[in-house]
């Protein structure tokens, strides 16, 4: 064993010596074979096959399973089932339902459902996306402190407005998706398009503008041509196969240079991020510290986690339980005021935090829990 090690190590030393004493100091490279297009899958990867009941020269398979023409499992889906679940909106507008909403209505809905995370008029919040601006920034590269990064927003980056409708309808508001009516989604989309100064048929979307299905389908987003390759035609998958099979399209192909290879300088960590890691890094093998018994497992702690923590665990949006400084002034107002604010809404806080399924008693219990954590 040890002999072998020495042999390998001496090989390495020899290589290094050769490298430093070589007169030519030319890089020495090993060329690799690349398969032709017809041996590749749609992603440019190796295309694997079943041969002699073995898949990819690796996994034995039962060929009888592959012989069966039909299994007839499950049952046929009904029209109503499909209608209830088919919630996507494709870029060619397939799936967009009817509805309408004005910019003004959208403004009100935005204040109620969106602003606590996405900021006033789409100006963004900590961790949550900015929704406006960024035009002309996409070529930016933030290479050193002070450089401006590219800013990817609905207006500067998104190629299709269909995605905006789909996203708002099925993914927003973040803690309560699928809670907005189609008309409400139209209104919020109208407001967001208006904020981004997007026009329809040359018309600006002012407060009174009412967005309908027909009008939305006319929207052409400013960055519609900002993406490649073009996959929307009938040969889309083939376009992708060719694109992904040629690594020079997306990378500088490397070679197996073995000696005298080009190299560069050593850059060390200047601003470590390790301090924010939770739980703190450790590879120790010891017994865990005993966990303190607390209110953590109470009913209201659980409700807080389910219904409130999306905002109230982010200090940029709402006061976080345990943050004594933030809570001191609030606790001073008296518990009844806090109950009222929580139940009826106050500033960025919607009534019951949007969790209208909770009773007033539940809300009071949650407030008690939050206050208790913050004393």
């Amino acid at each position, binding site marked *: 064993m040890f002999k*072998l*090690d020495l042999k*390998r190590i001496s090989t390495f030393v020899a290589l290094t010596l050769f*490298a430093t004493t070589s007169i030519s100091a030319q890089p020495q490279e090993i060329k690799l074979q690349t398969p032709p297009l017809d041996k590749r*899958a749609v*992603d440019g990867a190796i295309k694997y096959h079943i041969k002699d009941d073995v898949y990819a020269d690796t996994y034995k398979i039962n060929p*009888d*399973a592959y012989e069966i023409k039909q299994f007839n*499992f*499950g049952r046929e*889906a009904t029209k109503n*089932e*499909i209608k209830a*679940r088919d*919630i*996507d909106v494709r*870029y060619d507008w397939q799936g967009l339902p009817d509805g309408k909403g004005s910019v003004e209505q959208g403004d009100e809905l935005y204040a109620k459902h969106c602003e606590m995370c996405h900021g006033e008029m789409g100006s963004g*919040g*900590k*961790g*949550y996306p900015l929704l406006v601006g960024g035009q002309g920034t*996409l*070529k930016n590269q*933030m*290479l050193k402190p002070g450089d401006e990064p*590219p800013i990817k927003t*609905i207006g500067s*980056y998104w190629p299709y407005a269909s*995605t905006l409708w789909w996203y708002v309808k*099925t*993914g927003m508001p*973040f803690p309560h998706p699928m809670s907005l009516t189609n008309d409400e989604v139209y209104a919020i989309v109208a407001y967001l398009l208006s904020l981004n100064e997007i026009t329809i048929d040359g018309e600006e979307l002012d407060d009174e503008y009412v967005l309908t299905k027909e009008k939305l389908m006319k929207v052409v987003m400013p960055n519609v041509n*900002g993406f*490649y*390759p073009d*996959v929307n035609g009938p040969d889309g*998958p083939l376009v*992708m196969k060719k694109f*992904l099979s040629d690594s020079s399209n997306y*990378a*500088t*192909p*490397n070679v*197996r240079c073995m000696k*005298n*290879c080009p*190299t*560069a300088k*050593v*850059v*060390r960590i200047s601003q470590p*991020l390790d301090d924010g*890691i939770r739980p*703190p890094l*450790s590879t120790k093998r*010891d017994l865990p510290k005993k966990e303190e018994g607390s209110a953590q497992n109470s009913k209201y702690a659980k409700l807080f986690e389910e219904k409130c*923590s999306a905002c109230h*665990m*982010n200090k*940029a949006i709402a006061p976080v339980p345990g943050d004594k400084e933030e809570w001191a002034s609030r606790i001073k107002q008296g518990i009844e005021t806090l109950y009222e604010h929580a139940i009826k809404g106050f500033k960025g806080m919607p009534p019951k935090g949007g969790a209208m399924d909770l009773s007033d008693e539940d809300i009071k219990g949650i407030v008690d829990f939050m206050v208790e954590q913050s004393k």
Partner: protein
Amino acid sequence: MKREIDNKRESRRGFLKNIAASVVAAGTLAPSLLKADDPNLIEEPEWGKKLGLPVDKYLYGQPSPYEHNVVRRVHELLSSGDMYASVAMCPIHELDGIITPNGLFFNRCHGGVAIIDPNKYRLLIHGMVEKPLVLTLEDIKKYPSESVIHFIECPANGSTEWRAPQFNTLQFLKGMMSQAEWTGVRLKHILKDAGIKEGAKWVLAEGSDNSHMGRTIPLEKILDDAMVVWAQNGEALRPEQGYPIRLLVPGWEGNLNIKWLGRIEIGDKPWHAKEETSKYTMLMPSGKAIRFFWPMEVNSVITRPCPDKPWTHLKKGDVVEIEGLAWSGHGRIKGVDISFDGGKNWVEAKLKGLVLPKAWTRFSYIYKWEGEPLLLSSRAYDEVGNVQPTIDQEVGKMGVENIYHRNAIVTWEVKANGEVHNVQIRS
């Protein structure tokens, strides 16, 4: 960690002061701390003198309490400010072999981990099919199954490193990936029952959790090797992995392996979902973005040593195994080279264990370390002939604003005292 390292360094310094000069000269390497007549051998240990736990103590087994630091970890910068659209990183520095224990599998989700009642679970398949289908979980499990080993990697793995090195820990540098043995059915078998119509080219796969995340996948991939899976490493999927059903798209972006899979729609055009427009698109220095990028490219990293598992315990002249993981979504790993001098000269490492398609592959190099400082790098190459790029090559083409698909060579600086630091070799 910082404090711990500092403590370690302090105690080592204190120790070194009090011992013979010859040992100090031997290096700044930590000497063996094992004394002669070790009481751990001389005396009967406490676990040898009393009964252990009864067999019914944990009916679902737990790791040793001494392993409590082997956990996923989070960082608020890697989330949207909450812990719902966020990621918990896999402690890959603590893993052995190529299988990730289910409780440590990295967890990325977009609206929290959905807990689905398997009795109410339904998979809907519709669109350009002869017969739209509803399948229960039991229906799906009636199809003939296969078990395959594949990694799943988030394309944002390592994305904090585009401009400069930032994390001095492997867990956060490359922990957005894990590997399991997945059991399920090839989607091509299920689609025989639906019957695909002429002209169909694309598939929308959508999660049924609250983010309703959908992604477009070419039908060709779905019919090639995509699977609907219900088990990982021999047990039901964990909720974090999409219980009761997720899509498995071998070798492709983690995001495409839709968890809590609720719906499959077949169509003739791509959808352009939110994760194909605002996110998971690759913005190039030209200001234009690559729209779809599916496979995870050839990649590798040395896992021992690494910043989390340094060489501070070695004696001068110890023979040590340098070990790591290599993987490629384009196929099998063909080989891995190792450099000790920051990429000027390279030698071949050995692959060891199973070398599977689109799977983590272990590599190994036996080295006699004399305490000299090293710049240790690994460079993998795969079955399609792609070689892991240098940082300069990658940044030269892609810029630094891409976020996704960063697969450049990783370099560790091994110091004379055995500490290991994440550095970058770049112009």
